[in-house]
């Protein structure tokens, strides 16, 4: 990435320091707020820096981390997936059906793949805007989830609960989930040709030349469809994790996750205009959101105030990320 001519050495140094030209986005602001919040919570609360709370925090952050990775994949393409929350709800509803785990678990991921496929086809073949396509899908999937399970309840297979809330060699299961999910996400986004193509396609859209990648011979349509399938699959995985946490099905459990995942991606430095972003920023964004919720709970902040404080901190993080756009 080149610096504009005439830029002073100091400006160039500052741009490098703050990652203003980085393809990975400005993730340092999220990291800075995480460090500051952690120090503040350790200093002011008795219960934050305990093994039990660390385990709680990881388990609380995990669904958002998972769904945000999928969301980031489509946002890097200059897309957006508003159906992820409904996919999560549908996943819990399917898992709470009467049936053998060997049937229900594959069914969850097949359903998610089908949803992602329809999203992708609507976007690349029918030229429906990603927001409209996935918003429509959100309502369709929510309706199916409510048909399967009109009221929260039932029970999911024991194996689902055990792999989410259990422990292996004394290590809580969410630790293994974190390692596995980060490894898979890293391979897809930063360790594969597909990942490289995502940035190329999104970068073209961000610079106003959406057909650039196509003209260079990239199979942009196929990659976009694949990205939406991956987004839905990550959402299903997040729904699987939630189902293990609540041990039941709930048609409304994913309702907050569409916007929360977009927020996590944005505060992790990924540009909503496409072409710029990174897995580490997204994970930091999701951790920051979970940390704020956990920290405010432990700091005994008023339930009336927590939403407002969370909004102010998130605005602060995004404001710290003044970043030059691709190509500038």
């Amino acid at each position, binding site marked *: 990435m080149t610096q504009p001519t005439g830029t002073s050495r100091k400006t160039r140094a500052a741009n490098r320091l703050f990652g203003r030209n980085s393809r990975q986005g400005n993730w340092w602001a999220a990291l800075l707020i995480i460090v500051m919040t952690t120090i503040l919570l350790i200093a002011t609360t008795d219960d934050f820096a305990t093994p039990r709370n660390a385990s709680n925090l990881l388990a609380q952050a995990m669904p958002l981390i998972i769904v945000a990775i999928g969301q980031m994949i489509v946002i890097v393409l200059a897309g957006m997936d508003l159906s992820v929350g409904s996919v999560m709800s549908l996943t819990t509803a399917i898992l709470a059906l009467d049936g053998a785990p060997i049937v229900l678990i594959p069914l969850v991921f097949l359903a998610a793949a089908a949803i992602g496929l329809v999203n992708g086809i609507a976007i690349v073949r029918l030229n429906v805007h990603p927001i409209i396509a996935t918003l429509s899908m959100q309502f369709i999937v929510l309706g199916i989830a409510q048909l399967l399970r009109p009221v*929260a309840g039932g029970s999911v297979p024991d194996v689902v609960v055990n792999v989410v809330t259990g422990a292996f060699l004394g290590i809580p299961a969410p630790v293994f989930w974190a390692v596995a999910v980060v490894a898979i996400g890293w391979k897809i986004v930063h360790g594969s040709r597909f990942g490289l193509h995502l940035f190329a396609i999104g970068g073209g859209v961000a610079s106003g030349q959406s057909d650039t990648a196509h003209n260079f011979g990239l199979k942009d349509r196929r990659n976009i469809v694949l990205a939406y399938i991956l987004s839905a699959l990550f959402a299903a995985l997040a729904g699987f994790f939630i189902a293990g946490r*609540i041990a039941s099905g*709930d048609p*409304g459990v994913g309702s907050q996750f569409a916007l929360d995942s977009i927020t996590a991606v944005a505060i992790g430095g990924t540009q909503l205009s496409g072409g710029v972003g990174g897995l580490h920023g997204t994970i930091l964004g999701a951790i920051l959101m979970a940390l704020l919720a956990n920290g405010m709970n432990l700091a005994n902040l008023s339930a009336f105030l927590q939403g407002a404080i969370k909004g102010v901190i998130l605005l602060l993080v995004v404001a710290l990320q003044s970043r030059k756009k691709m190509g500038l």
Partner: protein
Amino acid sequence: MTTQRMAAAALFAALLGSTALAQDVNLMAGVEPRPEGNSVVAAGAFKTEAPWTIAMSHFGVNANTWTVQTAHEAQGIANADARIENFIMLDANFDQAKQVADIEDLIAQNPDVLIVMPVTPTSADAGIQKAIDAGIPVVVHTGRTENQNFTVDIQGGAENFGRVMGDFLVDQLGGEGKIWVLRGLPSHPEDINRYNGLVQSLEGTSIEITQEDYGSWVYDLGKSLCETFYLNDPDVDGIWSSGADMTRACVDVLAEFGADIPPITGEGNNGFFGQWLEMGYPSIVAEYSPSQAAAGVRAAVALLEGEALHKHYIYEPEGWDAAKAAEYYRDDLSANVWWPTELPEETLQSLYGN
């Protein structure tokens, strides 16, 4: 008398004594021990020296004016008791996953009692179990849980609520006619159970539900629904509304269209009372006091004081007529107050004074 008989007699006397004591604890007017399938939490089982930390997971503080008031009612009772050093209330914002996380965070702070207002029948199950396993007593109210291992629960009978309203309509309509149904939130257990109460009332009658939809218990959506219903088919003999804000909205719509107000069900809300008493249409109040949240704190305090409590309490009051509503109505307070309330006068004026 043998030693065994003496021991049995002493045990029997102790049980009788604890039952009597349990009955003496007054949690809230209208809250009674459940007559069937009940048990007693023994006196002293959770007795703890003050100061106390009481933790509360609220299902959603800011959903509507009623839920806001429940938070004030609980906080008010806690603030008034100097022995409660720390009252921690977390807002799940009607998010089941957040309630799971909230309860984890509350247990991490080692409270003396955990109070839970569940978002759904399952949202608090794992948390309740963790608390009980950690030796923390759990009080559940204003929503049922599938996990029955809690220490005490206080349940406002949603089916009773819907039935009080349904019986009123059956009576007013003479068992036949067309009614509209304004429901609350889709999939919400309270909505489903209230509706079940209505269905029970309508069994064996010739009353037909001609139009039905969800208004989320709020004024704006209730108004849109009734506008749609009226424009679709204005022929209606009665209206079953699951909440007072939707009732007010529907009455406003019918008044705007110049239509007669048919029998319509209401709730203990100051705004509804003002409208009802002024316009005089046929209605009834199904009582559902936000002070249930205060009763939850009172149950927590009773456990820490070492009082004996019943495991299950129910809250199934009868309907109110206009004369009773007139006793409660306050024109110096806003439409957002819900009756009956235990909020002190200065708090009422501070929060709701006109």
